[in-house]
């Protein structure tokens, strides 16, 4: 049943968020640190395990894939609910700082992508 997939996704999501918030608490920042990242790793790990066991049937998987295909519409809705007016009126500093720093980091991508790239066999 599809709901099994959705439930598995929900379980990974909640455990991941919990871990993220616990990590935040641990280092005294009251926010979620990497919750989505933990949840993604959990989902990948559990789907590999369940597939090996033969429990992850295509019908279950469809429940997860539906939500995966929903993220673009969700991102469009998110874009439509950003505080763009404040961003534009935040002044010149905000525009310059936001754009220059982002652009500089983007330009570093070709250099940093090389790390660990050409290793066909893992080191050590």
């Amino acid at each position, binding site marked *: 049943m599809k709901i099994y997939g959705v439930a598995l996704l929900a379980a990974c999501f909640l455990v991941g968020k919990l871990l993220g918030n616990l990590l935040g608490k641990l280092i005294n920042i009251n*926010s979620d640190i990497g919750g989505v990242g933990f949840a993604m790793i959990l989902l990948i790990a559990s789907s590999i395990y369940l597939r090996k066991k033969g429990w992850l049937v295509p019908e279950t998987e469809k429940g997860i894939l539906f939500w995966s295909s929903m993220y*673009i519409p969700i991102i469009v809705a998110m874009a439509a609910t950003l505080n763009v007016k404040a961003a534009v009126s935040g002044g010149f500093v905000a525009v310059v700082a936001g754009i*220059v720093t982002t652009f500089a980091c*983007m330009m570093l991508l070709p250099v940093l992508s090389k790390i660990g790239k050409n290793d066909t066999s893992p080191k050590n």
Partner: protein
Amino acid sequence: MEIIDKVIAKNGLIFAFLFVGFVMLFSFLISKKLLRNKIPGVAIAILIGLALAFTGNKKGMADIPLFAGMAILGGSMFRDFAVVATAMSADISKIKQAGLAGIISLFIGVTVTFSLGATIAYFMGYTDAVSMTTIAAGAGTYIVGPVTGTALGASSDVIAISVATGVIKTIFTTIITPVIAKRIKLDNPHAAVVFGGLIGTTSGVVAGLAATDEKLVPYGALTATFYTGVGCLLYPSVFYLILKFFGF
């Protein structure tokens, strides 16, 4: 008319599904018929979304009661849920291979952003360590900004600037990623992992990658989601002390 308003007000999220569906349909039609797929439909849809956000204030178009449901659909709960779901199509071996590069890029991204952000703030008249750190933190993400500002006791207008800086970053990343993707070789999972770590604004990275190549989204999201954490950790402590050390 009154009945229509009532039905929509009571079913805001459902109306948002319908509305976004129309925006998507419209965007893909424009992409296909008018632009011959030169600009992906997803990119057009996101741009329309950003343009629609100008109709409101704090919550974008969701400030209009009719579109209040957009804030639920586009809120962090649904966004994170859907982004986690994309992990299903991620290749674990590619993540492992890019793991080290991803972690390094996180720290380089945060450090470069801090150095440049603080320098820009300084030259634009914000010369005290607290303001410089807070504005630079906003250039990290719009969450790191206020968290840092609050921790350091920055004034509310400086915190507002830091949030604005973060939102500008998100919008800029969304628009510019598909444009320069080819030039910075952002066309494989490995580069996407590094990109997520360097840029860090999860919403911007996810939206930008979606407009570039949907397959790259889970890889970028994975590292980007740790950026805010690393930022919240380093800005109010290490980075602030560095500025203090240099006598600001």
